[in-house]
């Protein structure tokens, strides 16, 4: 492997690992807040217990999310110094503001956890709101850098030098709102379905109609409602993201759809594998005209095909599969809450059958998978550019060689962290059962948040 490929793989692996914790780190505080607010509304102690248990999980995940994020942030400079030199001049604002978001999250997270029993309820809720805002803002701001890589604005290049820098124009680049919105909405979707997964798994294991069963069912219902709302919003906004690709990065859309010839009435291609030789997508379902309609709201929208560009500028063609995977999962995640609604409200059943529970159990991991697909699609689909039509990936990379050892070292650390975080979570929740927490919540003067048997 050449060093550029190793650098790309190393950074991609870091991001792929960080994003799991980061996305859940955005989604969970929102769920915690929802539970706290439900408690304020219903005064039902079980919601406090939910918030507490999710907080513990969140704190453990932060233990991996923060260091891997630190790696990501520093590795950008270490592996892509050419890229960061441009970023430093034109697009440093989001990184800079993100620091404040990190501080807000870190300060108030500690306050929410370690001072929970010493501060009044309103201060606790405010702290939690600030944690949620901090997490959301980090995601939105870092995504803004990614958005700008696709639609770079706010500067000109003259004789290879950057001039006319307008940092706020760069900040408000055309795809900022849509892209950041998509990331935020998909993170809330993911947070909700991760909770739904765990609750469904618990329902599977718990005896019907016990107190614990009702606790988990309540959590499942809450997460399905939140997940249903946000998966729908994610899809609507995802559609808009695709329209932006049509406008600003047409080769990415062409690669996503395996479209070689520029045409109006272009078909939407689902499934299959893009074949470079025969220039078609094999084993796929074609829905005539649909792509043109989705891209521009009318059937005679002309969608550009890959042959518009020289082959060196094509993104890798496997992104078609990633795109399909994301959209497929997105559609499924809209259907699952509807299924629950149908079953519970319209068919008036008391209990979910195992086949429904198993789809719920799958939903969390699938949402995380959709996040991975979406990001790898978005970053790899931008190739061969780091800054679209301004800076190539090859020119961004470090001139250092022998990166293989580093790749192995980082991969090993991610394996260690990944395995131990799962182990620690299982250990903690085995030791601290729902019964313990419910019991603690009912007694006055016993710390709930500080507790850790």
């Amino acid at each position: 492997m050449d060093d550029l490929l190793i650098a790309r793989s190393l950074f991609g692996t870091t991001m792929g690992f960080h994003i799991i914790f980061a996305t859940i780190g955005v989604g969970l505080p929102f769920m915690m807040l929802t539970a706290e607010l439900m408690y304020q509304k219903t005064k039902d102690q079980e919601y406090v217990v939910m918030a507490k248990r999710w907080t513990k999980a969140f704190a453990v995940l932060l233990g991996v999310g923060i260091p891997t994020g630190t790696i990501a942030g520093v590795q950008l400079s270490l592996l892509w110094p050419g890229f960061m030199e441009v970023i430093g001049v034109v697009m440093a604002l989001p990184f800079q503001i993100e620091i404040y978001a990190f501080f807000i999250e870190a300060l108030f997270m500690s306050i929410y956890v370690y001072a929970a029993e010493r501060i009044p309820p309103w201060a606790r809720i405010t702290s939690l709101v600030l944690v949620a805002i901090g997490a959301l803002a980090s995601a939105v701001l870092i995504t803004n850098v990614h958005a700008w890589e696709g639609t770079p604005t706010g500067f000109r290049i003259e004789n290879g030098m950057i001039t006319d820098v307008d940092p706020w124009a760069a900040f408000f680049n055309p795809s900022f709102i849509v892209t950041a919105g998509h990331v935020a909405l998909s993170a809330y979707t993911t947070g909700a379905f991760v909770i739904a997964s765990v609750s469904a798994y618990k329902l599977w294991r718990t005896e019907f109609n016990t107190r614990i069963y009702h606790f988990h069912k309540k959590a499942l219902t809450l997460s399905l409602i939140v997940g249903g709302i946000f998966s729908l919003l994610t899809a609507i906004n995802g559609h808009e993201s695709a329209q932006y690709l049509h406008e600003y990065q047409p080769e990415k859309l062409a690669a996503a759809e395996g479209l070689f010839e520029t045409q109006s009435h272009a078909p939407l291609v689902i499934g299959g594998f893009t074949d470079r030789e025969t220039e078609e997508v094999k084993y796929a379902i074609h829905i005539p005209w649909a792509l043109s309609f989705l891209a521009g709201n009318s059937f005679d929208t002309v969608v550009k095909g890959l042959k518009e560009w020289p082959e060196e500028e094509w993104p890798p063609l496997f992104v078609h599969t990633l795109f399909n995977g994301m959209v497929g999962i997105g559609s499924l995640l809209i259907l699952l809450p509807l299924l629950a609604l149908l079953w519970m409200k319209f068919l008036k059943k008391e209990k979910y059958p195992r086949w429904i529970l198993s789809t719920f159990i799958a939903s969390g991991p699938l949402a995380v998978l959709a996040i991975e697909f979406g990001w790898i699609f978005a970053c790899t689909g931008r190739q061969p550019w780091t800054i679209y039509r301004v800076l190539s990936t090859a020119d961004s990379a470090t001139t250092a060689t022998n990166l293989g050892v580093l790749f192995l070292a980082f991969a090993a650390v991610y394996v260690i962290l990944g395995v131990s975080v799962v182990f620690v979570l299982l250990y903690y929740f085995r030791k601290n059962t729902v019964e313990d927490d419910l019991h603690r919540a009912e007694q006055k003067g016993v710390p709930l948040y500080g507790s850790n048997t």
Partner: protein
Amino acid sequence: MTDALLAITVLWGFVFIYAVMATMDFGAGFWSMIYFNRTQTKATNIANRYLSPTWEVTNTFIVALVVAVYSLFPSAAYTLGTVLLIPGSMILLLLALRSAFLVFSNIASEYRKPLTYISGITGILIPGLLISVLPITHGNYIDFSDGRQTLDLMKLFTSANEYAFIGFAISSTLFLSSLLLADYSKTAEEYEAYAVYRRDAIILGPISLAMAVLIMFTLRIEAPWLYEKMMDNLAFLITSVVFFVIGGLGLFLPSVTGGPKGMPRLTVIAITIQYLLASLVYGQAHLPYIVYPEVTIQNAFTDPNSFRAIFATYIAGFAILFPGFFYFWTLFMNDKRYLQQKQPPEETKT
């Protein structure tokens, strides 16, 4: 003051704040490991009580530092990013293990001992590597030929100056953290822990001062340009040593607020001023070079429009965050209910 000078001052400020917070952070982790088995003195307990709410905040400072480098001096970031690939990656790997196992050790109480050891040992190695950035910027170990920059790791790790820096970083980490924890445990009225940390500080103070002198000696041979410019400010250096002596006295004088001997709060303040003065001298002598001799604050400076925008966010960010920091401080550094909690440590961690 020119914009570039203003920018490097801000950067220097971040470096100083991070250096102080990080030494407290990594040092507390180390002490929590060392006194793990001595449950009766509560020394570990005190270290954890400080560490649990603060490590996240401290970590954010290192990210702030990296971001400040590339926002303010993009081409310095290019050079530093290129030459620091190996040491930077080593720091990142250690930092990842350290932070994660620190959190895990507070959650998985049965496995606390091995987890505390992993985070304690990785934590104490990090300052040694972090400080290596300074000798690297002195330029001796960087090969600037044919338009590329490469770090000569062999040369770096066979240099006496590098080891003086490493020794200084580790002894200072232990010194400053034991001081802070002495103060912290005195406020918490944990006098046994106070005695332990006071003793550690008394041993480590002279060692870190000796290391600082060793840095100057080796600097004279390896980076004379820097040594000479630092010596131009001899008065400051001497004042810094005077503050060291004041700090030392603070540990031996009788207490005015009651309790056992020593005024650790005075010592913490005096020693912080000592480090502040010394690093001012170092920082000023380093100018105008960021990486000697190729990268200066002028030729690496960012676009003026970007600088103005960034600077505006510093002011806005500080205004927004300050109340947050203050609230944080009152809850964890100054609230007797937190400092003196009676529960065993298992019940106080996330």
